[in-house]
């Protein structure tokens, strides 16, 4: 409940009318405060040649580290994947309808040209409902929401291993199938790799069921 309440703060409120209503009772907002926070106004007085050199050296080092880090693949986390699942299950925002792998892949490509394509899931007997591309930084992952016959919603997430690594979770052998598994509260995750792609199935169903579905995917 506390997490749901916290999300109330995510919805932005327009405060321009509020400020406009009281501006006649407040001092005029100085232009110098439009972009520069107050403490930085005294920045220039603090600088000396030595400090300037140190500041540039630190920024240069930070830039080198940033460039190095930006060339490495992003990392997906269990929490992130579960959040995708909940987002897909509630079908909010920019989800697009999908009724097959082909229509889903077409819809995903319309959202992001580099979205990894989904495998054929016809053999799973899951009914697709909607799909969308999520991004971790600038790395896309393709998400598809499906329904089991009992109405339970599962989410299938596909990522390109060269751009975004799946979470490092333990491997297990489930009914002869080798896969990586994780659990977060009521949701289970089952992850399998195929070449340079990984697929993760997420939902409130047993791991054995998820592994069975993952094994039924056709690439």
């Amino acid at each position, binding site marked *: 409940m*506390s997490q749901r*309440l*916290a999300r*109330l703060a995510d919805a932005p*409120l327009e405060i321009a009318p*509020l400020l406009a209503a009281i501006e006649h009772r407040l001092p005029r907002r*100085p232009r110098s*405060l439009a972009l520069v926070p107050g403490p930085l106004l005294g920045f220039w007085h603090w600088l000396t040649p030595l400090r300037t050199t140190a500041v540039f050296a630190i920024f240069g080092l930070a830039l080198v580290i940033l460039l190095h880090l930006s060339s490495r693949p992003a990392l997906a986390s269990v929490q992130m994947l579960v959040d995708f699942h909940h987002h897909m*299950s509630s079908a909010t925002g920019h989800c697009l309808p999908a009724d097959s792998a082909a229509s889903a892949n077409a819809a995903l490509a319309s959202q992001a040209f580099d979205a990894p394509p989904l495998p054929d899931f016809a053999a799973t007997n899951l009914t697709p409902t909607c799909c969308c591309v999520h991004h971790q930084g600038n790395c896309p992952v393709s998400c598809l929401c499906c329904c089991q016959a009992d109405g339970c919603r599962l989410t299938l997430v596909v990522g390109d291993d060269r751009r975004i690594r799946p979470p490092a979770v333990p491997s297990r052998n489930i009914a002869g199938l080798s896969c990586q598994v994780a659990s977060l509260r*009521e949701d289970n995750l089952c992850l399998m790799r195929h070449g340079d792609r990984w697929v993760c199935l997420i939902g409130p169903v047993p791991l054995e069921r998820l592994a069975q579905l993952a094994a039924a995917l056709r690439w």
Partner: protein
Amino acid sequence: MDVPDATRRFYNLIVPQAQSVLRVARCLVNDPAEADDLAQETLIRAFKAIDSFQQGTDVRAWVMAILRNLRIDRVRAAAAGIRTVSLDNSAVDPVDRSVSGPSWDHPRQLLEHFSDQDIISALCQLPEDIRWTLLLVDVEKIDQAQAAQVLDVPVGTIKSRAFRGRAMLRQALLPLARQRRWIS
């Protein structure tokens, strides 16, 4: 021309809290116009009292305290016919034994189905003291100790109100979930 320090402090410290002030005001007061007026007066008071703000302390908690005091002043001034419900006269009983049956088997999944307006409407059913606690602690993410200072109660009271409030909120949302056939 040098900017007066009070003016700089107000625009740097207080204006960024305007969204939080407005959000809390709208969750406290049913009438949108009255809520906006409450938020406006809070900002005005904050400007007038900006010199009393101690740098390094939590500005959001400071502004919420101003909002709280202003709200109390208005409630006292309009003592007759106010719609605020006291803690002893709550509309939602957290120990309502007549509510039985389905539990929140997948609470997080179920809560995601409610819109923000559903949550806010349910919040407005709660006693104001409980509502304040949830708004400060859960919505605005203010530290419990500071929330206790804002509401002028012990930290233990904040904890118990937050616990009770979340349960009361679930209780308030249950009929809506049933009505929408999300649960049996």
